């Protein structure tokens, strides 16, 4: 045969051989288990092969996926990854339990008006008195925690030299805190050390959410001696007071936590918790028994939920306090007209998107407050899918219809190669139900947030995660006209009045009702279009018990047990 034929034949033979070998190995070994988005489906004949791909046995230590924290300094922590470790290593006056109740941590009991722990002063301020336990010791030392340690820690957080981006948000209600953070004072007047075991915090107004804010890392106590001895690097192996202490942190590789035998609220059952930080295919690692818990993404959800799969028995979900939403810039055309906003809200079918695009992985949000959050209104309904009403509203708006609108662009965070499927669906729906062609813009995260904060975006998709379980952390922060985090630039005096009143309303039911009214305005005015609430999907090995997926970052590892 001639050269060309020989060449072609050689190529064909080689390709067939290569593909054949790979497929043969895969097929002969049988199906079973999921993979990373590949086409092979589990066969009905799947049986457990030597060692099994699921189940397996425990190593006695808990191995979790994780990411490097930005910092382990509670004064600086602003992100969830850092908070995940900090809440286990450190402690504060109060903490949250897995049922989301605020409970005492280093304080003996919660201050209330009934027990005299909360006192309203004549000048409108409120003083909280905390009596500290006498058995709380810093890790790796024998030093007991005293009230001065708290004063030191909080003032350190508020010290401008510390450059904390969160101190003012969480401790700013304390009298004198704002002065300190702006460099106008050397100490915080509102933090008073009465004696070693008594601390008084004076807050500028009767704010019911103050104790909730203290559950966030910024109010946690740090070891003064350690910090002063090693200001740069102390947080790499910090002496906290939490249920776990840091044994080892290899950057980018792993963090190992070890149970604190002297933990004052009860020694944790799991002795060692290792977070694997370098990533890799978590699902593959789980099936290979390298990790005990794995998150499940939209590409794998179907094979995991499939009842014939071994993995389906280990699949768990947990709702969390997060929401994704469409926001409108209420100061620019065309969304400064509420009818336009409402039209857009009524033109999308969120239930359908959740079912088809998101495979029902996320619950549709019916309001701003999430299920489980104090104040959540189960009767709340977001604007319904009603294309006729949508078109009607658009006609009634100052633009007279879709043709009068300027170009509308929706912006979201993304890599540029691929638009979020749900956004694509929404854009389709606006075209079909409203006759508006919405442009899609994708920017990477840092640019997106800069554009958002400077008011350059018209319409955007983003989200919010609750930091503490109080509606103030979402309704006040985002919709009060003077709030610096009001990304829709919405200003409504009636809403402002409700929020101001709610800030200091002492009667719990009345307060929550005020927030519910505020939420109603936000929904009806279509300032946000609530989309979905967060839900975690994960696989947990059967020998790991009581591994909760709490709705926000709270200490939970000490409740976990491992069956041997």
């Amino acid at each position, binding site marked *: 045969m001639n050269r060309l034929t020989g060449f072609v034949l*050689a*190529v064909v*033979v*080689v*390709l067939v051989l*290569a593909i054949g070998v*790979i497929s043969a*190995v*895969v097929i002969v*070994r049988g199906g079973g*288990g999921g*993979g*990373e*988005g*590949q086409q*092979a489906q589990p066969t009905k004949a799947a049986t457990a092969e*030597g*060692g099994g*791909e699921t189940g397996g046995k425990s190593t006695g230590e808990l191995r979790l996926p994780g990411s*490097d*924290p*930005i*910092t382990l300094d509670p004064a*600086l922590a*602003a*992100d969830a990854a850092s908070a995940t470790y900090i809440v286990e290593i450190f402690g504060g006056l109060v903490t949250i339990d897995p049922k989301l109740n605020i409970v005492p941590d280093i304080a003996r009991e919660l201050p209330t008006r009934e027990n005299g722990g909360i006192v309203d002063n004549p000048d409108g301020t409120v003083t909280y008195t905390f009596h500290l336990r006498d058995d709380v010791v810093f890790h790796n030392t024998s030093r007991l925690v005293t009230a001065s340690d708290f004063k030191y820690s909080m003032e350190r957080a508020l010290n*401008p*030299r510390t*450059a904390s*981006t*969160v101190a*003012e*948000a969480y401790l700013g209600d304390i009298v004198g805190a704002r002065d300190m*953070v*702006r460099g106008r004072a050397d100490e915080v007047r509102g933090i008073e050390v009465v004696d070693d075991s008594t601390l008084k915090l004076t807050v500028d107004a009767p704010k019911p959410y103050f104790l909730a804010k203290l559950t966030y890392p910024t109010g946690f106590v740090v070891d003064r001696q350690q910090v002063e001895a090693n200001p740069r690097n102390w*947080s790499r192996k910090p002496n906290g007071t939490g249920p776990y202490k840091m044994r080892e942190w290899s*950057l*980018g*590789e792993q963090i190992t936590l070890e149970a604190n035998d002297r933990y004052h609220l009860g020694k944790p059952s799991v002795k060692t918790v290792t977070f*694997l*930080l*370098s*990533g*890799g*295919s978590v699902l*593959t*690692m789980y*099936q*290979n028994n*390298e990790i005990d818990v794995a998150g499940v993404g939209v590409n794998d959800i179907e094979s995991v939920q499939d009842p014939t799969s071994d993995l389906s028995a280990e699949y768990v979900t947990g709702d969390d306090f997060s929401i994704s939403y469409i926001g409108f810039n209420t100061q620019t055309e065309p969304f400064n007209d509420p009818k336009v906003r409402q039209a857009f809200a009524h033109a999308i079918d969120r239930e359908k998107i959740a079912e088809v695009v998101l495979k029902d992985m996320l619950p549709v949000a019916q309001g701003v407050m999430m299920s489980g959050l104090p104040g959540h209104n189960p009767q709340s309904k977001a604007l319904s899918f009603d294309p006729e009403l949508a078109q009607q509203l658009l006609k009634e708006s100052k633009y007279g219809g879709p043709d009068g609108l300027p170009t509308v662009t929706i912006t979201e965070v993304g890599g540029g190669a691929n638009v979020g499927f749900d956004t694509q669906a929404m854009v389709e729906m606006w075209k079909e139900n409203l006759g508006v062609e919405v442009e899609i813009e994708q920017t990477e*995260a*840092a*640019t997106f*947030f*800069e*554009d958002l*904060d400077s008011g350059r975006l018209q319409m955007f998709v983003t989200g919010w*995660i609750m930091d503490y379980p109080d509606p103030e952390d979402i309704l006040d922060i985002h919709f009060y006209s003077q709030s*610096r*985090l009001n990304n829709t630039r919405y200003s409504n005096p009636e809403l402002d009045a409700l929020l101001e009143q709610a800030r200091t309303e002492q009667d719990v039911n009345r307060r929550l009702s005020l927030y519910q009214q505020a939420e109603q305005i936000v929904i009806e005015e279509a300032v946000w279009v609530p989309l979905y609430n967060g839900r975690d999907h994960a696989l947990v090995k059967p020998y790991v018990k009581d591994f909760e997926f709490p709705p926000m970052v709270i200490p939970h590892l000490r409740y976990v047990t491992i069956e041997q």
Partner: protein
Amino acid sequence: MQGILPYILRRLLWVPLILIAVSFIAFTVARFGPGDPISVAMGQFRDPEVLARVRHEKGLDKPVLDQYRIYVWNVLHGDLGESYRYGGRPVSEIIFPKMWVSAQLGLVALIITFGVGIPAGILAALRQGSWMDPAAISLLLFFRSVPVLITVPVMLLVFVLKLHWFPAAGWEGIFDKHIVIPALALSLPGIAGVARLMRATTLDVLKEDYVRTARAKGLPEFTVVSRHVARNALLPLVTIIGISLVTLLEGAFFAEVLMGIPGIGREAFDSVKSRDYDVILGLALVLAAAFIVANIVIDIAYTFIDPRVRYQRSGVT
């Protein structure tokens, strides 16, 4: 050897100039571009007033030229700055260990690439005309065309989930089995290029007079190939090997992400995303310096490999 030392010194004079140019460009682009490391590290609670205050505390609101001056001063004192993403850790502590990991992985991949590519190329050249030549090259091109994003998951499926030969992720050093899959995935695409180049240069060398002479002298074919052909055919590859060694420092993003390897490729990507200014600059400087040094080393290597190459005042003879 006469002209070599002045030559090296002249080349080295370029280093500070290039480093200043690279760092200045990277510095100004980072600071004038959108986004800001403090804002990124703040997460969702982005209060503009707090942001302004912290930026001021960190010196980020000074004029850019002032910031640059301070940066250069620090670098000259050995301080590459701090990372925002890693809570103030020194930049050197972040990039050097990760570069070392990437270098180890890359080295193993490189050894495989050249270790397979060079003999494959020579073989193809020697067997030119038979079916082995196009078959070898085609197989290698097949692997060239399949991206790492595909080869890694396929290998994970076959070798980890089905055969349980290797672990799914992680890094335990150069002599541990964690390295096998990523090294294979990274090495396969490059083999084709090396083989084809080797084949081409070998074919050229085979036509040379001295090869005919060696064969006429009655030397065994193996000696002809290894002593006369290979040594000369390798010469053009020195450049490629040299540059490849520098790319070891760049890491491999997809392999690192898919297989959980704490390498520099992923770090570079993450630091740009998070606007971790000092890490980005540190990387730019180290890579620029490495490239310049590598080029000089390659040029020197040539003088040893090819006696015809000499350097004089006016350049290469």
